[in-house]
């Protein structure tokens, strides 16, 4: 994997410098650590803040989604490493406008620990927080252990839906309830074709044969459910839909949004080929697709592969999904 960078250890800080320089209308770097980013605009008094965070290397996740109708602030770690509890606390303080702050992030050990610690820190400063973990990757644990699943592209729906709810001046409990509903309604599964390289490590996250793919692999190279020869797009899509709808059965008449997401190198052309199959397949099940998302929404730098997320909608979630949002990477 070839990269355009300077000093590997400066990767994240230089990236954030560039991000904030390119989009000062969206992003504001917070003083102390330089690893917390808030919306450029001051928070609306009383609005519930939404904070996320995690390791770098997943743009637009996490930082990119700071913006109206989405996140209020974000803590950013090194590539694939949790930010520190202090950085999270700083993001939480920036997001607090008196209405409390929802901590909404992916279910990874380090992030969970640090957000817990950060919540304790700001609790002493009388900032109320609620925590919702995104755990949508069906490959990472069985249906009986959903709380152990990793968070992947489902983050995008969680941000969007909770973000829209917060923008409507709902209370912390209400925003957290929508976030929980979003998490309960999302299922994701990925397929990896090539690894990526963490700049500071300088070697690929895993090895895989030239003609192979790994079904269910995690975005940091966590082992998946099966490795085998690369199969045709339609077969991959079919297996993905089957796995997701087995975990979350859909009935005729159901409405869903789907996210066909590239892990990085896989181009949109291929995503559209997959979307074509998925949308027909869902239609054949009597399920209608609303506001599909196709593109690079949650990535692992230059990793090749894609993921499919199905988000089941009810009237409330559909309205929240279609509500406006605005960041440098996504506008509705």
């Amino acid at each position, binding site marked *: 994997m070839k990269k355009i960078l300077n000093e590997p250890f400066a990767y994240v800080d230089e990236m954030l410098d560039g991000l904030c320089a390119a989009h000062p209308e969206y992003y504001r770097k917070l003083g102390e650590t330089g690893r917390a980013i808030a919306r450029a605009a001051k928070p609306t008094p009383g609005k519930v803040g939404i904070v996320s965070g995690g390791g770098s290397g997943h743009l637009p996740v996490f930082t990119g989604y700071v913006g109206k109708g989405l996140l209020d602030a974000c803590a950013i770690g090194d590539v694939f*490493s*949790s930010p520190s509890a202090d950085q999270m606390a700083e993001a939480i303080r920036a997001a607090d406008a008196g209405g409390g702050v929802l901590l909404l992030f992916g279910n990874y050990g380090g992030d969970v620990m*640090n957000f817990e610690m950060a919540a304790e820190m700001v609790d002493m400063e009388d900032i109320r927080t609620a925590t919702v973990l995104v755990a949508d990757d069906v490959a990472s644990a069985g249906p009986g252990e959903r709380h152990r699943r990793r968070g992947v592209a489902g983050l995008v729906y969680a941000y969007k839906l909770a973000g829209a709810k917060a923008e409507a001046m709902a209370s912390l409990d209400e925003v957290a309830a929508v976030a929980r509903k979003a998490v309960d309604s999302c299922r994701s599964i990925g397929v990896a074709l090539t690894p990526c390289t963490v700049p500071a490590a300088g070697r690929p996250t895993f090895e895989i044969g030239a003609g192979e793919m790994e079904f269910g692999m995690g975005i940091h190279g966590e082992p998946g459910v099966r490795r085998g020869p690369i199969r045709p797009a339609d077969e991959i899509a079919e297996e993905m839909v089957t796995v997701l709808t087995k975990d979350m059965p859909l009935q005729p008449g159901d409405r869903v949004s789907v996210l066909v997401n590239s892990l990085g190198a896989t181009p949109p052309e291929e995503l559209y080929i997959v979307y074509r199959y998925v949308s027909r397949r869902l239609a054949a099940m009597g399920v209608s697709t609303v506001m599909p998302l196709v593109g690079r929404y949650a990535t692992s730098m230059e990793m090749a592969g894609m993921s499919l997320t199905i988000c089941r909608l009810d009237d409330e979630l559909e309205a929240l999904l279609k509500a406006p949002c605005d960041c440098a990477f996504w506008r509705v």
Partner: protein
Amino acid sequence: MPEGLTAATLQGGLRLICLQMEASAAELNELDGALGDGDLGITMVRGCRTIEAEIDTYPDDVGMVLLKCAQAFTRTSGSTFGTLLATGLMSAAKATKGRSEVPWRELPDLLGQALDAMTKRGKAQLGDKTVLDAVEAVRAAASQSGDPGAMLQGSRAGVAQVMDRMRNLPARQGRARIFGDKSVGRDDPGMVVLQRIVEALSG
């Protein structure tokens, strides 16, 4: 010699630990690199350098010194080990806040409380081949005697023992778990950190 741990004794110990971590950084990065992201030495060095930079301004309050140490890690690291260490230190800081001396015989309890806090934070269990098992070995050794020298000797032996016992088990927590069987036959890097700390303190 005082009857317990004073802020001054603690500072002396911290200086020894900081020196040791500079010396062990490469070893720790390498151990963690084989089964994880290779940042364990970096985590320790960053925290220790922050401590060293401030240590002369630390107040004569055991609890406050421990709190400062905890903060040195929450500020500089988001890695599991840094956060767990900070969690343990924070627990001990709360229990000793406002005191300029803590009797040696309170040490096992403080370590036990720290262990509880770390267990709760990391959701791991004793036996999972993590730093927790090493902390437990130190706690057990400390409860065998009221004398700091004997405590350290016991800890050295106890940590070595538990490491021997766990070496051939697979890792069950953290990034190392992903490597599964590759971790069999290898020491847990977090336990090695505790081993180096005990060694540094026992000179």
